[in-house]
C-alpha cells in the first residue's frame, strides 16, 4: 500500500501512531513492509491457504464474534442435503460439469429457498425464474449454467441458531477448513508456524466487541485464476470476526488508479450497467418485465431494481423512453457471452472485431500475453488510441517486438491507427471515485495544450457527429443512437461539455427537472431519470456535493462534509451491523449508528454516520407476510443489499466457481496441490491454448521442473501501471530508469546472476530481459519441504518513452478468473538465467526450445 497508494498510506501511518498494529503479507519485502510491525513473506498464489488457515484458527479456538455471527451472517442457515463440499469430492463442489467446465449451483442452495446474488452472475437462475418460457439464444460460457438454479422456495430458509446442525453453514465451514492447519499453511505458503500464529493472534486480539481489524488488498489478490475467492476468503474471516459494517473494520479494495472505482460504478465493463445492474443477455423475447423478474431480488434493496433501471433508461433516452415502448429497454445491447478484454483480442485474431478504441490503456505492454494483444491489433481495420504520449499500443506497427523478429512487416499491416492526444486531469473538470466510494471533484486548472482534449469532449462530439451523419435514417438499427438524450451544454473555445451537467444527469431528476436527493425517490413508472442510482444525491439541491472541501479539523471524525460518498453520503456500508440486534452499539468504543427510541415519532436510527438502514425501521420490526424489496427485511438484517439481509459466509448463488474459497494452485505452478487432488480451479476461464498462449506443466507433471521459480508482477511508487503516465516524465523516469527484476542473494548464487547485470526470464509464452537487483528483500521460502525462490517483476516498461525495458506481461498466459475474467499476473512459473536475451528470430527459437524441453503442447495445463 505504501508502494502503490502512498497518499492513502498516510492514514495507515496515522493509525499506527495511535497504536494500530500493521501486518504486511507479501512475497516481497516492500516499502509497506518497511513500515509494518510484521512482514509475512509467502509464496505468491497461496493466499487462500493462508486465509483459510486463519479461518480455521478462529473456528478451532472459538475466536469468532458469536453474537454477530448468529444474528448477522448466514452461519445458522441449513443447506440442502445434496450439497457436497470439496472435502467430499477431493477438491470440487457438487454440480461440476467437466465437459462445459462449469458448475450448476442448484445443490448449493439453502434448504427450502432460493437466493439471488447481490451482484455478479445473477442471470444463472433466469429460466427457472421466468417460468422456463425463454431459452438462451446463444449460450456462452459465462451463462452456460443459466438453466440451473434452485426451485423457488416458499418461506424462510431453515435456521439453527445453536450453529450445531451438521448441514448449517457454520458446520460446513468448520469441516471445509479443518485441514487448513498451521502445518499445512507452512507447507503450502512457506510461512513458518510461529509467524503464522503471531498473525492469527494479532488479528483475533484486535477483533471483537471493543476492537476491529481492517483488511486492505489490491490486485495482488484479484489477479489470479481464483482472485474473487481470495477476497471471499477475507470476507468469510471478517464476517466471523464481526469486522464488517463497523468503524475500523471492512475489506478495502485499493483500486489500481484514480477513479477505477468510478469506472466500475459507472462501468467500462461489458457485463454491467451503471450501479451494478447486469447487462441483459440475449434471451429470446425478453422484455423489461421479464428481465426485472429474473434479475431483481425479492428482498432487500435490489428488490427495487425496476425503479433503478427505468430511471437509467430515462436518463439515456429521455422523452423517447415511455411506458408504451418499455422505456426503450430493447435499445440496450444484449450479451451473447463473455466480451472481456481478452475475448475481444481473440475476436480480433479471428477477424470478428475490426475496430478498437483505447482510452488511456496500453495493452501492448500492460495486458497479459502482450504479444497476443499486438497480434490481435494487427488484424484490426482501425484503431483509435487516446493517450498523452505515443505509447506502445500506438506504435507497435512500426517498432514493436514482432517487427524485430520479422513476424510482422509494417507494409503488410492494414490497420489504420489514429492517435489522439488526451487531456490530463488537471486540464479538465470531473470527479474521482476512490476506494471508499468517495466522489471528489477536481477543477480544471489549465487549458489542455494543442489538440489534446478530454475524454468527455471526445465521447460527446463523436456521438454528436455520428448522430448528425445518421440524421434522417429510417433504419431501425439507428434508433437507439438517434433517440439518445444527447444535449449537454458546452463551454469555452474547445466546446468542452460541462462536466457538472453530466454529474447532474447521473444524480437524476424528477418529472419537473428538480434534482433528486436519494435513490429512495426513484420510481419505476418513468417519472424519474437517474444515470446511476447509487450516485443519486451527489447533486442534491442542485449543488455539486462532490466538490465540498470542509477540512477535517472543522468537523467530526466521520467528516461527512468532505466530498460525497455513495450511497447517500454513507461512509461505512452495512453500518447497522455496528449495533447489536437490539440497536445498541456493540461497544461505546466502536459506536457508529444506533437506534434512538426517543427520536422521531416512534424512534429512529441515529449516529455519527448516515445509517445504512430504513430510518424508522425499529430493531424489533418483523416484515409482514409476503412483503418484497426493502420492506421484506426485518429490523435485524443489516446487509440490506443481500436477498436475506445477511453477510454471506457461504455463497449459494452469484459465483461461478464455488460457494466457499478453496485453495487451488495457480495455472502455472511448480507445486502440486497439497490439499486436494484437484490441481487448479476446475472452472477457471481458460482461453484457447494458441501457439502463442501455451500453458505449462505443473506440480508433479513432467516438464514442470523446466520452470522452477515463481514469478509475480507488481508496481513501483515511481511509475504508473503500463507507464503511459510516467515513462515519458523525466522527473519520474530518472527515479526508476530501467526495467529490473528482484531476486534473493541465494537465487543469484544458484543461477549466477550478478547485481545490476542482466537476466533473461523465460515462460512458455515469451522471453524477456531485465537488469538484476539482488536483494535481501526477496527471501527464499521453504515450500513443500524444499527451497523456493521467487522472482519479482515490476511491469511498467515497454520499448517507448524515456525509461525503457521489456514488458513483464509478455510472460503471462491467458487463464483467467471465471467471475471477473482477469488475468493471473500475480503468480506464474518461470526460468531465469544470466545474460541478455537473444534478439530477433533467435528469441522465438529460445522459447520454442523451452517448450520442447518441457514437453508442452496444446493440451498441457488445460485439463479441468
Amino acid at each position, binding site marked *: 500500500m505504501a508502494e502503490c497508494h502512498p497518499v492513502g498510506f498516510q492514514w495507515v*501511518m496515522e493509525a499506527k501512531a495511535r497504536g494500530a498494529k500493521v501486518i504486511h503479507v507479501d512475497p516481497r519485502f516492500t516499502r509497506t513492509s518497511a513500515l509494518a510491525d510484521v512482514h509475512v513473506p509467502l509464496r505468491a498464489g497461496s493466499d487462500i491457504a493462508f486465509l483459510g488457515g486463519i479461518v480455521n484458527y478462529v473456528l478451532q479456538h472459538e475466536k469468532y464474534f458469536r453474537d454477530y455471527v448468529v444474528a448477522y451472517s448466514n452461519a445458522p442457515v441449513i443447506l440442502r442435503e445434496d450439497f457436497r463440499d470439496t472435502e467430499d469430492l477431493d477438491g470440487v463442489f457438487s454440480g461440476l460439469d467437466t465437459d462445459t467446465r462449469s458448475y450448476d449451483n442448484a445443490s448449493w442452495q439453502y434448504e427450502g429457498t432460493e437466493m439471488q446474488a447481490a451482484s455478479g452472475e445473477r442471470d444463472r437462475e433466469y429460466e427457472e425464474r421466468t417460468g422456463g418460457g425463454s431459452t438462451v439464444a446463444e449460450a456462452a460460457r459465462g451463462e452456460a449454467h443459466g438453466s440451473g438454479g434452485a426451485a423457488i422456495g416458499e418461506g424462510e430458509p431453515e435456521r439453527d441458531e445453536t450453529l450445531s446442525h451438521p448441514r448449517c453453514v457454520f458446520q460446513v465451514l468448520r469441516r471445509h477448513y479443518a485441514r487448513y492447519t498451521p502445518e499445512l499453511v507452512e507447507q503450502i505458503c512457506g510461512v513458518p508456524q510461529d509467524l503464522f500464529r503471531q498473525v492469527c493472534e494479532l488479528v483475533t486480539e484486535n477483533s471483537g466487541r471493543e476492537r476491529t481489524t481492517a483488511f486492505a488488498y489490491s490486485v495482488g489478490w484479484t489477479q489470479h485464476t481464483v482472485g474473487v475467492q481470495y477476497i471471499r476468503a477475507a470476507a468469510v474471516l471478517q464476517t466471523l470476526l464481526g469486522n464488517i459494517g463497523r468503524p475500523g473494520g471492512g475489506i478495502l479494495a485499493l483500486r489500481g488508479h484514480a477513479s477505477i472505482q468510478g469506472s466500475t460504478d459507472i462501468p467500462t465493463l461489458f457485463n454491467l450497467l451503471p450501479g451494478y445492474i447486469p447487462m441483459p443477455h440475449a434471451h429470446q423475447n425478453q422484455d423489461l418485465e421479464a428481465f426485472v423478474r429474473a434479475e431483481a431480488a425479492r428482498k432487500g434493496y435490489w428488490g427495487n431494481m425496476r425503479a433503478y433501471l427505468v430511471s437509467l433508461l430515462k436518463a439515456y433516452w429521455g422523452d423517447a423512453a415511455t411506458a408504451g415502448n418499455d422505456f426503450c429497454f430493447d435499445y440496450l445491447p444484449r450479451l451473447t457471452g463473455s466480451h472481456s478484454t481478452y475475448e475481444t483480442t481473440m475476436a480480433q485474431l479471428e477477424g470478428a472485431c475490426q475496430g478498437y478504441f483505447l482510452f488511456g490503456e496500453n495493452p501492448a505492454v500492460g495486458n497479459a500475453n502482450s504479444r497476443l494483444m499486438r497480434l490481435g491489433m494487427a488484424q484490426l481495420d482501425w484503431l483509435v488510441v487516446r493517450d498523452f504520449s505515443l505509447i506502445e499500443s500506438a506504435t507497435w506497427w512500426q517498432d514493436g517486438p514482432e517487427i524485430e523478429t520479422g513476424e510482422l512487416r509494417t507494409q503488410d499491416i492494414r490497420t489504420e491507427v489514429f492517435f489522439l492526444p488526451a487531456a490530463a486531469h488537471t486540464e479538465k473538470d470531473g470527479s474521482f471515485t476512490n476506494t471508499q466510494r468517495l466522489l471528489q471533484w477536481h477543477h480544471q486548472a489549465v487549458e489542455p495544450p494543442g489538440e489534446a482534449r478530454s475524454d468527455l469532449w471526445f465521447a460527446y462530439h463523436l456521438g454528436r457527429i455520428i448522430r448528425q451523419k445518421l440524421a434522417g435514417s429510417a433504419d431501425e438499427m439507428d434508433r437507439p443512437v438517434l433517440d439518445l438524450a444527447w444535449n449537454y451544454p458546452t463551454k469555452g473555445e474547445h466546446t468542452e461539455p460541462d462536466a457538472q451537467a453530466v454529474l447532474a444527469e447521473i444524480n437524476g431528476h424528477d418529472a419537473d427537472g428538480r434534482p433528486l436527493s436519494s435513490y429512495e425517490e426513484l420510481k419505476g413508472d418513468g417519472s424519474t431519470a437517474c444515470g446511476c442510482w447509487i450516485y443519486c444525491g451527489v447533486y442534491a439541491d442542485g449543488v455539486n456535493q462532490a466538490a465540498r472541501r470542509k477540512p477535517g479539523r472543522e468537523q467530526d471524525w466521520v467528516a461527512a462534509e468532505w466530498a460525497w460518498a455513495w450511497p447517500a453520503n454513507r461512509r461505512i456500508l452495512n453500518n447497522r451491523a455496528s449495533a447489536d440486534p437490539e440497536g445498541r452499539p456493540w461497544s461505546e468504543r466502536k459506536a457508529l449508528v444506533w437506534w434512538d427510541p426517543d427520536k422521531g415519532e416512534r424512534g429512529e436510527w441515529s449516529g455519527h454516520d448516515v445509517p445504512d438502514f430504513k430510518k424508522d425501521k425499529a430493531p424489533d420490526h418483523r416484515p409482514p407476510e409476503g412483503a418484497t424489496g426493502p420492506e421484506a427485511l426485518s429490523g435485524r438484517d443489516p446487509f440490506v443489499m443481500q436477498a436475506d439481509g445477511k453477510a454471506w459466509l457461504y455463497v449459494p448463488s452469484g459465483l461461478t466457481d464455488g460457494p466457499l474459497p478453496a485453495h487451488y494452485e495457480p495455472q502455472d505452478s511448480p507445486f502440486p496441490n497439497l490439499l486436494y487432488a484437484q490441481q487448479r480451479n476446475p472452472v477457471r476461464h481458460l482461453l484457447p491454448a494458441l501457439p502463442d498462449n501455451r500453458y505449462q506443466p505443473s506440480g508433479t507433471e513432467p516438464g514442470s521442473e523446466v520452470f522452477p521459480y515463481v514469478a509475480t508482477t507488481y508496481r513501483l511508487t515511481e511509475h504508473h501501471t503500463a507507464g503511459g503516465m510516467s515513462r515519458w516524465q523525466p*522527473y519520474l523516469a530518472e*527515479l526508476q530508469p530501467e526495467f529490473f527484476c528482484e531476486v534473493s542473494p541465494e537465487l543469484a548464487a544458484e543461477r549466477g546472476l550478478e547485481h545490476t547485470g542482466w537476466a533473461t526470464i523465460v515462460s512458455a509464452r515469451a522471453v524477456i530481459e531485465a537488469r538484476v537487483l539482488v536483494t535481501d528483500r526477496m527471501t527464499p521460502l521453504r515450500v513443500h519441504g524444499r527451497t523456493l525462490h521467487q522472482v519479482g517483476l515490476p511491469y511498467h516498461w515497454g520499448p517507448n518513452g524515456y525509461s525503457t525495458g521489456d514488458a513483464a506481461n509478455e510472460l503471462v498466459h491467458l487463464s483467467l478468473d471465471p467471475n471477473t475474467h482477469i488475468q493471473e499476473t500475480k503468480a506464474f512459473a518461470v526460468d531465469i538465467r544470466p545474460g541478455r536475451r537473444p534478439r530477433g528470430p533467435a528469441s522465438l527459437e529460445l522459447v520454442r526450445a523451452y517448450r520442447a524441453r518441457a514437453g508442452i503442447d496444446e493440451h498441457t495445463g488445460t485439463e479441468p
Partner: protein
Amino acid sequence: MTGDDDTPRMGFFTDTSVCIGCKACEVACKEWNAIPEDGLELTGMSYDNTQRLGSDSWRHVAFIEQRKPFGGPEPALTHEDVDVFAAASRLGTDPGSPDGHTELRWLMASDVCKHCTHAACLDVCPTGSLFRTEFGTVVVQEDVCNGCGYCVPACPYGVIDQRRDDGRAWKCTLCYDRLGVGMEPACAKSCPTESIQFGPLQELRERAAARVRQLHTAGVTDARLYGESPDDGVGGDGAFFLLLDEPEVYGLPPDPVVTTRDLPAMWRHAALAAASLAALAAAGFARRPR
C-alpha cells in the same frame, strides 16, 4: 541564529521513522523549482537512483537495506575485531542471530540542505550571492552567483554543487519564494506521511524531542536526532533529522564542523605572523648602521 526579529527561524524536521520512500519530495522539489532531470542510471543502490544531493537534486531519498539481529545490541562504534570480508561473504545467507531470526530493515530518509546556523558556504561566498534570509535560511541568488565554486568544498555535508552546464552553484532554497507568500516548501507539502515537517525551528525541536521519547518508550532505542543541537560543529542545523541508525549509515557526516570555524584563528595567526614579520623587518632596518 534566529530569523528577523518578527520572523522566527524556519526549518525542516525530517522524521525518517515514518518515511515511506515515495520520493514525492524529490519530484515536488524539481517541479516547483524547475530543476533539470539529471540522468537515467540504474545504480543498484536499492531503490536509490538519485544517489546524492547535488545541483540538480535538492532532496534525495536514501534507501538502506539492513539485516539486524532481533533484539541484538546496537552496532558497535568500533569494528576493530570484525572481519568485514568474512561478514560480507555471509551477507544474505547468514541467519545473523543464534535462533535464526533476523530483522530486515529498509531505512528511508529524505536528505536536504541543512541550512546551518554557521554556514560555511555563505562565509566563503565572495559575491554575496549566498545570503541569510529573514527566515534564517541560506539561499543562493542565481543571478548573482559567478560560479567561483568556493562554496562547494566549504560545505561540510557536500550539499551545494555547481551545475555542469552553467557553472553556478545550486541548492535547496527552502522554497524561499513560497515562504515569502506564506506557503510551506514543496517537499513538505507533498509528503504524505508528515515525514518532512516544516515550521518554526524551536517548535520543530520540541516536537522532535517528544517524538524521540515516544519512540524510545515504544522500544525503538535506535532513534536519535541529528543536527538539532545548537552546540554541534555547525551551531545546529535549520534542517535536522530523526534517524534510526548512525549518521554514517545514511551517508551523513557523524560530526560536521563548519569549515570556516578556524578561519578567524587562522587570520589571527596570519596577522600575527605578518606583524611579526613586519616587526622583524622593521627591527632589521632599525639596526642597520647608518
